[in-house]
C-alpha cells in the first residue's frame, strides 16, 4: 500500500478563504430540491476531487459543507434511487432536469476587457440567456416561463434550468435534438431553399415565406431585413458580383415581393448572398451552449447558491427571465460581507469591477479592500494577505 503523500499545511490565505466560505455556508446553506435523490461532488484543489456522495436531507448537506468547506460543490441534474451508489448503472436513474450552460467568451469583441471578472462579457452572456429563454424556450419550444429559472454560474456564465415532469423524461438523444435547434448547428441552405423545376432545364429556388416556421423563418426574417436596407457594398461583401448587386438594389421592391412569395431566385447572383445570410442568421440567432452539460445525464453541475472557488462569488439563482434583467452578478452574487475589510498585497497591477466599483490596484502595494474583493483576489491567487 502506498504511503499517503504528505500535504503542505494550508497557507494563511487558504485559511482565510476557508473561514469566509464556512461562514457563508453556516449562514446561507444551499439546498437543492429533492436533495436526497441527487448525487453530489466536491472539489478542494480542482473542480471535482470526488463525487458519488449523497445526503438524506438539507441538514446533512449543510453539516458537511460547514465541516469540510469545499471550494467547489457540484450536484447532479439527474434524480436517482440510490444517488451514492457506484458505478453509475447502480444508481437507478429516474430522469433529469433540463439544463443549458452558457459561458461564451466575448473577450474578442470591442470593449475594455477586464481579466478577473469582465462586466461586459458577463452582460453579453446574460443577453444570450435572455434570448435562449425568450426566443427559443418560450416562443419556439412553448415552455412556460414560470418553469424556467436562471442561475449565475459563479464565474463567467449562466445556467438555465427546467424541472417539469415532461422535461425530466427527455432522453439524452432528445436533449441533443433541442441543442441542435438552439445552436442552429447542421441547418443547411440546401434543406431550406429547395430547387423546383419550372420547365426543361429551368429551376427556381423555393424558400421560406412569412408563414414559415422554425429556422426557415429565422432565415426569412434575416434576409428580408437585409434586403430592405442593403447597399451595393453590403451585397458584394456577401458574395454578389457588382453588376448583380447594382441590379438587386435597383429592383429592391420587386425582389422583396418575390421573396415574400417564396421565390428566392428572382434575380441572378443571390445564392451566395443567401448562403452568407444563413451563416449570419446562425451567428445572430444561434447560441453557443456547452453541449455536454445538456445531454450528458451523468454530469454534475455547480450547485445553486454554493460558492464558486475560482471567484468566491455565489452561483446564485437570478430568478426567471423577467428578473434576469435586473440581476447584476457582480453586485448580487457576493458571498462575503462587503462591510468588512481585509488588507491584501496584489502580485501584479490589477483593474477590475466588483460591487459597482472599479478597483485599480498596484503590484506589491498593500491596500485595504472589502472582503468580497479580497476573496476574489485570493481565490484567483492574484494577491496575498498583508
Amino acid at each position: 500500500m502506498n504511503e499517503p503523500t504528505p500535504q503542505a499545511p494550508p497557507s494563511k490565505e487558504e485559511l482565510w478563504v476557508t473561514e469566509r466560505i464556512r461562514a457563508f455556508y453556516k449562514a446561507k446553506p444551499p439546498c437543492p430540491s429533492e436533495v436526497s435523490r441527487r448525487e453530489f461532488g466536491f472539489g478542494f484543489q480542482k473542480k471535482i476531487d470526488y463525487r458519488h456522495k449523497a445526503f438524506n436531507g438539507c441538514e446533512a448537506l449543510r453539516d458537511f459543507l460547514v465541516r469540510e468547506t469545499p471550494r467547489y460543490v457540484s450536484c447532479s441534474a439527474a434524480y436517482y434511487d440510490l444517488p451514492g451508489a457506484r458505478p453509475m448503472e447502480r444508481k437507478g436513474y429516474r430522469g433529469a432536469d433540463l439544463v443549458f450552460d452558457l459561458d461564451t467568451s466575448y473577450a474578442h469583441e470591442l470593449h475594455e476587457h477586464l481579466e478577473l471578472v469582465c462586466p461586459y462579457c458577463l452582460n453579453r452572456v446574460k443577453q444570450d440567456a435572455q434570448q435562449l429563454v425568450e426566443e427559443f424556450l418560450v416562443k419556439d419550444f412553448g415552455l412556460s416561463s414560470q418553469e424556467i429559472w436562471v442561475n449565475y454560474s459563479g464565474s463567467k456564465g449562466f445556467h438555465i434550468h427546467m424541472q417539469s415532469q415532461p422535461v425530466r423524461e427527455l432522453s439524452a438523444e432528445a436533449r441533443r435534438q433541442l441543442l441542435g435547434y438552439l445552436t442552429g448547428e447542421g441547418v443547411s441552405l440546401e434543406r431550406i431553399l429547395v430547387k423546383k423545376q419550372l420547365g426543361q432545364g429551368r429551376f427556381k429556388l423555393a424558400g421560406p415565406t412569412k408563414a414559415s416556421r422554425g429556422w426557415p423563418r429565422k432565415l426569412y426574417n434575416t434576409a428580408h431585413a437585409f434586403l430592405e436596407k442593403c447597399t451595393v457594398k453590403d451585397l458584394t461583401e456577401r458574395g454578389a458580383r457588382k453588376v448583380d448587386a447594382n441590379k438587386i438594389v435597383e429592383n429592391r421592391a420587386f425582389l422583396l415581393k418575390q421573396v415574400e412569395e417564396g421565390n428566392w431566385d428572382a434575380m441572378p447572383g443571390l445564392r451566395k448572398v443567401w448562403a452568407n445570410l444563413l451563416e449570419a442568421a446562425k451567428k445572430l440567432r444561434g447560441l453557443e451552449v456547452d453541449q455536454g452539460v445538456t445531454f450528458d445525464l451523468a454530469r454534475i453541475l455547480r450547485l445553486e447558491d454554493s460558492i464558486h472557488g475560482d471567484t468566491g462569488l455565489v452561483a446564485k439563482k437570478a430568478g426567471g427571465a423577467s428578473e434576469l434583467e435586473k440581476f447584476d452578478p457582480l453586485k448580487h452574487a457576493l458571498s462575503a460581507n462587503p462591510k468588512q475589510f481585509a488588507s491584501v498585497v496584489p502580485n501584479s497591477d490589477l483593474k477590475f469591477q466588483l460591487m459597482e466599483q472599479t478597483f485599480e490596484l498596484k503590484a506589491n502595494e498593500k491596500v485595504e479592500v472589502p472582503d468580497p474583493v479580497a476573496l476574489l483576489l485570493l481565490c484567483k491567487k492574484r494577491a496575498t494577505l498583508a
Partner: protein
Amino acid sequence: MESGEHLATYASARALLALAGDTYATRKWAAGEAVAFFTELEREPEEVFKQIAQELLPSLQENEGSYTLAVLDYAQHGRDLAHQAVEEGRVWLDHQQILHLLKRSIENKLLASVPRSALHDAPVELKKAAEELRAKLPKYEIPLASIGGKLGPRGLYLARACIQELRKGASEGKRWYASMALSLALRHDRIPLEQAKEIITEFANNCSKGARPFTAREAITTLEWVYKRDGPARISCRNLISQGLIPDYCPTCPYKGGRRKRNEEQ
C-alpha cells in the same frame, strides 16, 4: 396469433434479451418488432390507427390533414428538429413524417430499459434460458474492412496532438468521455480490435484514480460498444475543449473555425 399470446411472447423476449445483456441484439430485435407491429397497424381501420397513434404520441393533433406535435414529444422520437417547422411549442408535420415518428416511438417503447430489480427477481428458468441465449447470440467480431470505410483525407486521428493528449489519461468525471473519444479515434483509424484494446487499457491505467478507479474493463466496454456500431466516427474538438480534456484546438486542427473552414478547404 392471439393478442394475449403475442403479448406474453413479447414480454418473455424482452426479459430474455435484458437478462442476456446484449444491447446490440436488443436493438436489432426492437427494430424488427417495430416494423412488424407498424405493418399490422397500417392495416387497421383508420379509427383504430388514429387511436393507437394518439396513445403513442399523446400530444398529436390533426387538423384537416395536417398534423402538429409538441416539441418535446418530437424530440423524444424524431430527428433533425433544426429543420422542422417549429412554432409556439409545436412541430408541424405531414402524414409521412407522422408515420415515421410512430415507427420510431414503437421502437423506443420496446427499448425502454428493464429495471435492475426486475432482472434480479426474474425466475431461475428465465435466467437459465438467457444464459443459453447469450451463448447462441453471434459474437460481433467486426471485420476491419467494414469499419468506417476509407480513411479521411486528413489521415490518422491517432497522430493528432489532441488524441495524443487524450492518451495521457483523464481526471474523474471526464474519464468516460475521454475513453469514448479515444475509442472513436481508434475505430476511425481502423485499428484492429485487439490492438485497440491495448491502447485503451494503457489509457485507463493513465487515468487518475479518484474516489473510484477507472478500470480497463470499463474502457474496453466503451471501445467494444463503439466498434459494434458502423455510423460515422467523428470526434467533436469543441466538445473535447469544453469538457476540459484538451486546452485548445491543435495548431493544425482542420476543424478549428468550424464547418465553414472545412468546406472552404475542400
